[in-house]
């Protein structure tokens, strides 16, 4: 079981308190009606599937209830960092990214 750091609670808690929420930093278009079919399809369905660093959303569903973002390595499963929703994706140095 992973330990996950909630940036709102500033506390590290077991994975069972959290729910995964898919890829992070996908903003809903402000005016979906102005998107082309292709743009909307991409928004709905096209996701990265990286081997390695992945920015993703988590919710502290059995804690404070807040959605936040995380950088996780899909190879090692390890969390590199977590940060509040709305904050920019952190720039990782090569060393941090390489776990």
């Amino acid at each position, binding site marked *: *079981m*992973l*330990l996950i750091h909630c940036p709102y609670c500033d506390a590290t808690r077991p994975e069972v308190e959290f*729910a995964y*929420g898919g890829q992070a930093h996908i*903003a*809903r278009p402000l*005016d*979906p*009606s102005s*998107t082309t*079919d292709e743009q*909307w*399809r991409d928004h*709905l369905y096209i996701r990265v599937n990286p081997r390695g660093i992945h920015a993703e*959303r988590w*919710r502290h*569903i059995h804690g404070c*209830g*807040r*959605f936040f973002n995380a950088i996780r390595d899909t*190879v*090692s*499963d*390890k969390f590199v960092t977590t940060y509040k*929703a*709305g904050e920019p994706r952190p720039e990782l140095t090569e060393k941090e990214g390489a*776990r």
Partner: protein
Amino acid sequence: MADFRIPGAGRVNHGKPVQFTFNGKTITGLEGDTVASALLANGVHLVGRSFKYHRPRGILSAGSEEPNALLGVDHGPARVEPNNRATVVEVTQGLKTISQNHWPSLERDIGAINDVLYMLFTAGFYYKTFMWPKSFWNKVYEPIIRGTAGLGKPPVEPDPDTYSSRFAHCDVLVVGSGPAGLAAALAAGRSGAKVFLVDEQTELGGSLLSETDASINGMSGWAWLKASVDELAGMDNVTLLPRTTAIGYYHQNFVGLCQRITDHLSSAPQGAPRERMWKIRAKQVVLAQGAIEKPLVFDGNDRPGVMLASAARTYLNRYGVKVGNSPVVVTSHDSAWLAAFDLARAGVKVQAIIDVRKAVPTDLKATAESLGIEVLAGWTVTGTKGRLRVSSVRAKPIDGGSEQAREFACDALLMGGGWTPSLHLFSHTQGKLEWREDAQTFLPAKHVESSRCAGAGNGEFGLANALQQGAAAGQAAAADAGFSGSGASYEIAGEIALGGTTLRELPTDRNTATAKAFVDFQNDVTAKDIRLAVREGFKSIEHVKRYTTTGMATDQGKTSNINGLLIASDAVQRPAPQVGLTTFRPPYTPTTFGAFAGYNRGRLFDVTRKTPIDSWAEEQGAVFEPVSLWRRAWYFPKPGEDMHAAVARECKATRDSLGIFDASTLGKIEIVGPDAAEFLNRMYTNPWTKLQPGRTRYGVLLGEDGFIRDDGVIGRLSTDRFHVTTTTGGAARVLNMMEDYLQTEFPDLKVWLTSTTEQWAVIAVNGPNSRNLIAPLVEGIDLSEEAFPHMSIAEGKIAGVPTRLFRMSFTGERGYEINVPARYGRAIWEKLMAEGQRYGITPYGTETMHVLRAEKGYIIVGQDTDGTLTPDDAGLGWAIGKAKPDFVGKRSLSRPDMLKTDRKQLVGLLTEDPKTVLEEGAQIVLDPNQAVPMKMVGHVTSSYWSVALNRSIALAVIEGGNGRMGETVHIPMPSGTLRAKVTGTVFYDPENTRLSA
């Protein structure tokens, strides 16, 4: 029975005999014995038949790596377990053990014909032998394979034992209590760190328990062991867990430990759990799991009596048991010589030490000669004889001709092929392994967790290395966990340096095509099978493994993986690291389901949510059904009624007069705030701005993909407060989705969401007399048609209790849903039941609710929809606020695929024969005469007997269904093809006159 026990020898209790049975025969062992050591003490080597060839098999090892000696054990009624390793099961008074995989008896087994037919069972036999003719597969091959496959018989009764689980945290977890683990625990413990020391064996000590030569700090090995264990036991910060297997090593130093608590006790304390699963989070882990001796690969290396040399040494030194009176030793490694020496010193006539190395250490040779053991260096073993026990071994010089071969009579053959470090737990962490060419093995390279390996796990053999590395690892681990201590140094005397060489199959002058040189004993895989697999094109070890099944048995190839790899690597002509090692997965050794389940069984297996009215329904004899985590009253049978009769009565009573239904499981969300209406505008398809306080609306929730996710009636209590209902199963999902949008897409809105599902009990009263029932009880709400029409909401009191009263209907009849605080739920229900007697009030369950709503064509999200239906598909296009610029899912509704006319659409079906009730899920075709496989155009989603219509009704999704009104479609069933007419979805009262009747 022959006695192979040496009086007074070993660590067993010679004063405490223990009787158990093996295949019905009483065997006397000693306290401290395993079943294997007790059997060997009685001269029993034959303990089972092998998996594929039914070859007689004995005891290969003395530990948890045992592939052969698998027994059924019987601890008493319902406590029967197959496939226990005789080498780890402790003897208890009255224990029954039975051998497996034979008929009619262990000694005479019909299945051994497979051994003669072995050509059929070579690598990939599952894929080849049984391929033709195809029609034989289902009826002939599969039943035979299933009938003969598998070892042992699983228990059939419920497990009477209890199992517990516990969480723990520590600074340093040490896995393995051999010299390295003990030294690590001592170093960490002395620093003050909180230490857990776990070992799968009954006693702490690991290899020290089998060791009699060396001394540590001037003490004998056993004296040092006792002093060390005593010291650790005296530390408050140290927890010692023998009989505890570290089964899996997970992320962030989370380790699963399975502790065996009662199996070794003849009578367990009342209430004691059989096993306990520890889930431990350690700051630092020290892996000191030691190494496992490798068998040698030669023809006939599987006969009973052929065993690992280290095992023979363990049986002698730890259990006081001679494994034979005239053993032969064959080896490629110095360590096997020590077994020969110890046996000779115990008075056993060791016939010969056959070492494949031409040059053997002179000190070993000298010792052997002084003990009167013949040494044959540069010799190989080419075969064994003996039907149920090895009786002789053929040896010859590797460089010599066949005429120089010699036959040695023997009753045991001890083999030593070097050592494989136990890196299973390290591998669970995805730690990198590195091939060490000199040692011909994999060793840990880069740790990805906060862990260290010590001792044999690092490929460093010998007592001095183990103690030194262990002490250093323990000290470093404690330091990393924030504790400082000083290192310890150990003075070792009497240790023999150990070296060796690594071989694949032993060289032979005989035909290798007919040799049965086993690599994987448990799955009966030979060297020939592995070479055949490579010839047939399998180049990666993962493929070779699956094709031959080598390493795939319950022992996960603990004794076979490296031999298999080396043979495959030779056959492929590629270096071992390029062929690769198969993946180790948890659990390290077979673990009971009970230990994994822990407390989560029976009533505690899953949550059962009950409504405030559930107890009343139970008292009335309701039949329940599970709906998501809830249990709901399904129907209320009267004496003599079956489900059909009960549901028919409940339906009729509700339509004729008055029915009462517990709707408390409905999901409820309170949405509050100045932007509440705008939030609903953005979430639901419907418009909400103009909905007046006191009115309700049926809302449809889509996913962003345009497909229906949920629905429910939403009432507006005031400009800034909505009472939202969701489906029973969708409540948590909907709230999560709303939170998601509110927090991440619409943070500008001032809205608060609160789950109120469990705060309100909901009682639905339906039928022409529903208003007559509640009118005398309601205060503060004008129930007149003008003031409180269909789709209204108001707050007031009912029977003196605050209520939120909905006027709504899921039956098509006049209906009210009475929300009261949950604690009043049962009281108000009983009050309504009492007052309703004059109207023949009838409680109904979910089945009647389903029938009544289907008669009206009201959909159930998740039953009539499946995540691929748009509002238009489901006939809910009217619920879309066309003027709204946006809502979740709106953009998707104009994607080209969503506008196609041949989408599956929800329609009604009326069977040609009104008595036939279609099966839900049945597939629908347009042309019943087309060839199989037919083109399926849809399926039945809901189907019931309608009392009101005196015929069957059904809902279905059908491609282009809206354009097929009046057409006949076909539903092929095993008993014949049924015909049905496509209709609209509303079967009963299409004018909705009854809503206000």
